[in-house]
Every structure is written in structure tokens, then in C-alpha cells.
């Protein structure tokens, strides 16, 4: 019972993926997206995509039928013409009103396009700078990104702050000429282990070989 409660209230698990295509480029991505591994999980994943697609198409179809009840005679709609005509067409044309149809369809599409997870990443390019990005809450909308050139990066560090009823660790970048620091994973605020990996990697990539020794020292001190 207690465990069930704990599992229900726990935040989604975060995983860190490191991508290093070239020695001077490294990307860290923290994501809450569940990765299906077992066969039932895989099946569930693909079925859910299929279901989303079908629901979306149905919603569009309802809208079309409401707009032009005689669209089923159109050759373009022959793809789903038959069964739609039988089950929905008559009722939609008759009973539903515009003021219900439009919000309902919009809601369905909102639900379909909503991203169930958050993905935040930092991409570091040696000698160039770094780019932070946060995925949007909807599919089809681009992620919020920010590029910071090396010349304006003053420091990158891990610190703690109050957030709600907690004290959380965060990875922050100090930028020349700006009052506030830039928090790297602002929505997910991953746990300390992840942050430390990212911090070490970022320092190594940004400041090159010179600070590798420094990083090692900190490790020993901890």
C-alpha cells in the first residue's frame, strides 16, 4: 500500500544520455521519456501511437462531416467513406452543434499532440560555446534553445537553492554582463549524480586539458 502510494507520487525517472560525435563536441540530454525495452512495453508503445493517430483522424473526420455533410460522396473521402457514413455521418449532421464540435476536436488534438515527457539538453562545442535546450510541451513546436559563446561564459558550477519545500541542486552558467545565471536543466532539475557528470564533462570540453587536473582534485576532496 505504502509502496504503491510512493510509486504513484514519485516524479518520472530521469535518464542521462551522453552523445559525443567528435572529440570536441559533447551533448548531455536528460529526459523523462520512458524507453520501452521489453516486448509488451514495445507493443504498448506502438499501439499507443496507432491509437493516437486513429483518434486524431476520427476527430478530423467529424469536423469535415459537420462542415460538409455530403463530403462522403466526394471521391477524396472514399478512404474512410463507408464506415464513417454508417456510424457517424447521420448523427453528426443532425444533432451536434458547432459550439460543441470545435472545442471537442481542439481538445482531442491537444491531448494527442501533448508530449508526455520533458527533455532538456546541453550541447558543448570546444572553442565555440554551448547550447542549452528545453523541449516544448507539445509535439510540432520547436524546443527553446539558447546559445552561449565561449567568450561570454565566465563560470559553470553546481549550487543549491530553495525550490518549493525542498533544497535542490542546480547547474548554473555565469554569463558576462548578465545579472542572473542561466540554469542548465531548469525544469527537470536532475539529481546530483547526473549534474556532476554533466559538470565534469562540460568543464573538460570547455576548458580543455588544462582543467582536467582540477576536476580530479575536486573528486578527491569530495
Amino acid at each position, binding site marked *: 500500500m*505504502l509502496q504503491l*502510494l*510512493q510509486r504513484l*507520487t*514519485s*516524479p518520472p525517472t530521469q535518464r542521462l544520455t551522453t552523445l559525443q560525435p567528435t572529440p570536441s563536441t559533447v551533448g548531455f540530454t536528460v529526459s523523462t521519456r520512458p524507453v520501452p525495452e521489453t516486448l509488451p512495453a514495445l507493443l504498448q508503445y506502438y499501439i499507443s501511437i496507432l491509437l493516437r493517430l486513429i483518434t486524431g483522424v476520427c476527430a478530423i473526420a467529424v469536423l469535415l462531416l459537420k462542415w460538409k455533410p455530403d463530403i462522403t460522396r466526394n471521391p477524396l473521402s472514399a478512404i474512410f467513406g463507408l464506415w464513417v457514413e454508417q456510424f457517424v455521418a447521420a448523427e453528426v449532421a443532425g444533432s451536434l452543434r458547432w459550439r460543441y464540435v470545435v472545442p471537442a476536436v481542439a481538445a482531442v488534438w491537444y491531448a494527442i499532440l501533448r508530449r508526455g515527457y520533458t527533455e532538456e539538453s546541453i550541447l558543448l562545442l570546444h572553442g565555440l560555446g554551448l547550447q542549452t535546450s528545453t523541449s516544448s510541451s507539445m509535439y510540432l513546436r520547436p524546443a527553446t534553445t539558447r546559445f552561449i559563446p565561449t567568450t561570454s561564459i565566465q563560470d559553470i558550477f553546481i*549550487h*543549491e*537553492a*530553495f525550490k518549493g*519545500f*525542498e*533544497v*535542490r*541542486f542546480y547547474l548554473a552558467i555565469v554569463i558576462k554582463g548578465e545579472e542572473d545565471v542561466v540554469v542548465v536543466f531548469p525544469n527537470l532539475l536532475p*539529481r*546530483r549524480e547526473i549534474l556532476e557528470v554533466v559538470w565534469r564533462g562540460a568543464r573538460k570540453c570547455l576548458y580543455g586539458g588544462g582543467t582536467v587536473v582540477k576536476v580530479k582534485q575536486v573528486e578527491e*576532496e*569530495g
Partner: protein
Amino acid sequence: MHYNIAMVSDFFFPQPGGIESHIYQLSSKLIDRGHKVIVITHAYAGRTGVRYLTNSLKVYHVPFFVVYRETTFPTVFSFFPIFRNIIIRERIEIVHGHGSLSSFCLEAILHARTMGLRTVFTDHSLFGFADAASILTNKLLKFILSDVDHVICVSHTSKENTVLRASLDPLMVSAIPNAVVAENFRPRSPNRESHHRSAPGPPPRLSPNDIITIVVLSRLFYNKGTDLLIAALPRILALHPNVRFIIAGSGPKAIDLEQTIERHVLQDRVTLLGPVRHDEVRDVMVQGHIYLHPSLTEAFGTVIVEAASCGLYVVCTRVGGIPEVLPTHMTEFAKPEEDDIVAATGRAIAALRAGKVRTELFHNQVKQMYSWQDIAQRTERVYDGISGVLSHDEFYQGASTGGWTATRGRAGVQSFALIERLKRYYGCGIWAGKLFCLCVIVDYLLYVFLEIFAPRSRIDLAKNWPKKILKETDVSKDGTGISRKRSSRRREKREDRTET
């Protein structure tokens, strides 16, 4: 033994004051002795979040609502979630609260007991028993201190007062005074001081026509005796023509003081400095010969120790813990009334003029009497006692023997069981006892709730600040070499653990 200690109080830097510097000095000396200390206080303007001070002292400025004189609004339970989070992430073993007017501190002690931690409370002030506010504060204090492991008071008078107010067993209350950093309060010329270290020369005599300066340095509040000062000031100046006053500090009574000076046309003989920062106190002190402290109530009075350390002869009222603070040859006592203060100041001036007082020796004497190292050592002994490192007899010097011991029964050195705690709270009063029990039960339920919905596994542990490697020579000088060595071994062990 080395502990992780959390000092909790509403009062901390950047606000100046006695409790604030007490917490800071004690913490930094405890860190020197190998403990880990954090300070939890509320957020001040421009000072929020987590900060590090010198000597790796970590300060949590919790964002909370401030009501009156830098005290937070007493919301009994809202502080618990964040407090628990800090305690868990810093792996705190002992919670040490300061100041009986600080709701932060009192709440922290209650929550810490609910979480099964050792608690110590330090009382820095004296209270009355008669007025409504005192009765309420005392009841609250009694509630919180019903279940605390040990109480520290800054003087024996303060101890007596606290024991009565909170109906405690005197055995579980220790008197550990404040101290001063003597290096920061040197008398005027350092070369004269070094000269005296080798051989005291002839005392510098003041001729009857030399001007004697009297320094008053306090916040100008009623309880600091500003009214007495206002009454006595014109009389002292009328009696002694070659006397000047320097008055520093601010507060609601400043206007009265200014009016008095204007009414008696004393502007050329009284200098008002206004508020003075703590690091400027010494510069003000050394301008004078006598320090006048007309306070009406004072638990300890650090400022008179500072004054004596600066080489000033002290005239003070015989109230609260003041008589314990300095030896009689450094002070001239007065009753807290106008006539006696005038008389005592007259005696002090006469003594100085006669060269009977060797003020230039005060600094070294104070230095020997008061040091924070000593205070930290004594506080550490309290920690040892409550966590069972020292045996019960050793800690209380065999004061209580037999099966049932007052201290254990009362303070519950072992028992954190809810039912035991409830028994202690129930004894607080007919209605209050039941109310307090209700509070404790709600607190406990909140704790259980938090354990489910914010489990410990979800809280990141904070890393300890890398410790300085102590030089062995320093260690042997302290005479605690053995314990230090043990500590370093333990530290290694702890490092191993964090690495794995």
C-alpha cells in the same frame, strides 16, 4: 566523536547582535574542532538561499515571512517539510536552537525531536514572569523544552531564570558564557601592551584636570536602560566638570536622549555617534576611559567584556547575569536607579584619577578568561553527554543516582518513542498539556506523511566541504591531540564511504 550540527535561529548575520555573533563564533570554533556545522535562519533582504561563510560555515537562509524585530511568524508546521529536507540532506545529528524569542528555533526543536534527533537549546535572554507577553512566551518555552535533551544558558542568573520559566530540572541546564574575540578588542596602543607583557610599568595617572571620557554603547531601548542614562547624564556632567560622554547606538529612545541634551545645553560635552557597526565598536571604545552600562536586564552582557578588553573601567548595574561576567576590580556596580548610577560613576572617576585601577592590564586578563575555543570545548562536552558518548554519571558528575534519574526521565536521553514524548508534554498544564499533545501528534502525522510522499531516497545528500588538513603541531598545542587523531581517522573512513 564528531557530529553534524545544525544551529537554528531567527537571528543571524547580516543583522548585528549578540546572539548572531555567538552563533557564528561558536560554529566556526566547532568546525575547527572537526565537527560539521550548518546554520539555518530565515531570509534577510538581499540574503536568501544557501551561502557559505568563511571557515566553510554553510548558511541556509530559508525564505519565510518576518513579523516583528526579525522574528518569523510562528507557523508551527509549515517549516517542517523544508527543515526535514535540510536535516536529511546534511545528515544532521544534533539540532542546536538559539534564542527563546525565535519561533524558528522553537519549531526546529519540536520537529527535530519528532525526527528522532538530539536537541540542545541555548537561552540568551532573561524574561519576567508577570506580564501577559512573558506568560505566553514562558508557556511556549515550557512546551518546547518539555522534550529537549539539554539546555545551555549564558550565565548562572540566566540558568536560574530559564529553569523557573520552563520548569526544567536544573541538572539538564548548563551555564556556558559568551566570549569575545580579544584580538578584535585591543586597547589603544599596541606597543604599550607588548611592553606590559614583559613588565608592568608605572600606571599612567590622570591629573584632576585631565578629561575623562565615558562611553555608552548600546541599542537605545527601554530594556537597555536608556531612561536611566537620560536621567543620570545631566547630573553626572554637572558634578564632574572634566567629563565628556560618547554615546553610540540607535533605537526608539534616541529622541528622548537628544531632547535631554538640548534642554541642558550639553552638545559640547556629549557626542552622539548614532548606529555603529560591530567592527567599529573597538574604535569607539578606545576613545574613552569608563564604560557605562545602565541596562535594566541582561543575561550576559558581552559588551562589557568587550569594553574591559579595550581597557575601559566598567560602571554597570547589578542586574541579571552582569555580576558574574567580570571580576570586581574591573567594575563598579550600581543599583538600577538614577542616584546610585551617579554615585557609582563618581566613584569610578575618583578611582581613575587616583590611579587605583590598572585598566591597561584588563586586556590580557579578559583574554585569559574568555575564549571561544573554551566555549566550543564546553559545548562539545554537552553534545557528548546527550548523545551518550560520556556516561550519564560522568556527564552529570554523579549528581543523580538511583534507578529513576530526573534528567533521563525528563530529557529522555534514550527515548524518542511518541508515547514517552506525549507523557512529557502532557504535564505542561491542564489545558495546555492536551493542546501541546495535539500539536505533537499532528507533527508526528505530518512526519509520517512526508516520509511517504517525500521519501528520503528522493533527497540528494549534500557534499561536505573539503576539510583542511590540520597541522599536527597545532593539534598538540591544544592538548587534544588524541581526540584529533581519532577524528582524522574517522574522517578518512567517512571519505571512503562517500567514494563508494
